[in-house]
């Protein structure tokens, strides 16, 4: 039953690699992110003393602006998602390995790879777990962060 969800077309996605361009990390990004998570923005004095960059800000830097005309009915950008089942998905797990803290001025670039598609039988439905691994490197090409995302497709 679960194998029905995983077509040859979907299997052909395994190993696919995508570039993940990122915007450079600025103080304005940090300030917006702090407000977004309910923290006060840094004062000029605090910013001068040193800025601790929130680790999860990489998600913002790697999310490129999208033409609103291209958004789906859900309001999200069309996903690069393997063709599984009804085309629906939900977040599973996110795993981060942080090789070093992010710093202002970092210019990251990411490379994302679809590592696997695994059929599973859940309690309520058959599903496929997709695992994408993204390596984010800095301008010196050193790996700064490795993200593994598992998404449930059905």
């Amino acid at each position, binding site marked *: 039953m679960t194998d029905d969800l995983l077509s040859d077309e979907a299997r052909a996605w395994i190993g696919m690699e995508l570039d993940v361009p990122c915007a450079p990390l600025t103080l304005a990004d940090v300030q917006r992110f702090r407000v977004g*998570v309910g923290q006060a923005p840094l004062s000029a004095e605090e910013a001068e003393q040193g800025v601790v960059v929130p680790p999860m800000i990489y998600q913002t830097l790697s999310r490129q602006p999208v033409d609103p005309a291209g958004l789906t009915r859900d309001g999200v950008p069309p996903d690069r998602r393997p063709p599984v089942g009804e085309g629906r998905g939900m977040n599973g797990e996110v795993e981060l390995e942080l090789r070093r803290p992010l710093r202002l001025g970092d210019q990251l670039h990411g490379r994302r790879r679809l590592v696997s598609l695994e059929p599973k039988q859940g309690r309520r439905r058959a599903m496929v777990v997709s695992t994408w691994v993204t390596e984010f490197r800095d301008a010196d090409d050193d790996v700064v962060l490795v993200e593994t995302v598992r998404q449930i497709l059905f």
Partner: protein
Amino acid sequence: MTTHEDTAAPRVEVGAELPARSKTPDEVALFLFSAATGNPHRIHYDRDYAHADGHRDVVVQGSLQANWLIEAMLSWAPDATLTAFTFRNVATAYVNDPFVVGGRVAEVHEHPDGIEVVVDLQVEGPDGATTVGRGTLLMTDGRVA
């Protein structure tokens, strides 16, 4: 005279609880997080859409809860460096619900640069956990705030 030992924060031990933090995200909080992260998903701001999608109200972003978990760790150990973090959204979290963010030290390891502390974390809503996670902190002095 006060000695350093008198004022120093306690060392980290397995089983130590992180101070619980309360969160009650309202519509403005959800909007600000969506705006900051460029996330236009309707379930986070369009109540009618959220209802039609089977939710009882607009949905708190999973990544916002992940940030709460990181905040809980780094408030507890402000001088530590986060080296690894995993999170999983296990149930839907809804706007204006009260949440408690907490954690517990699961492992403590020696490290060449100090100690490595593994913390199990969770966001607890009115109906149970909505997000669980695990973070690894490198602490050069082995003490918390």
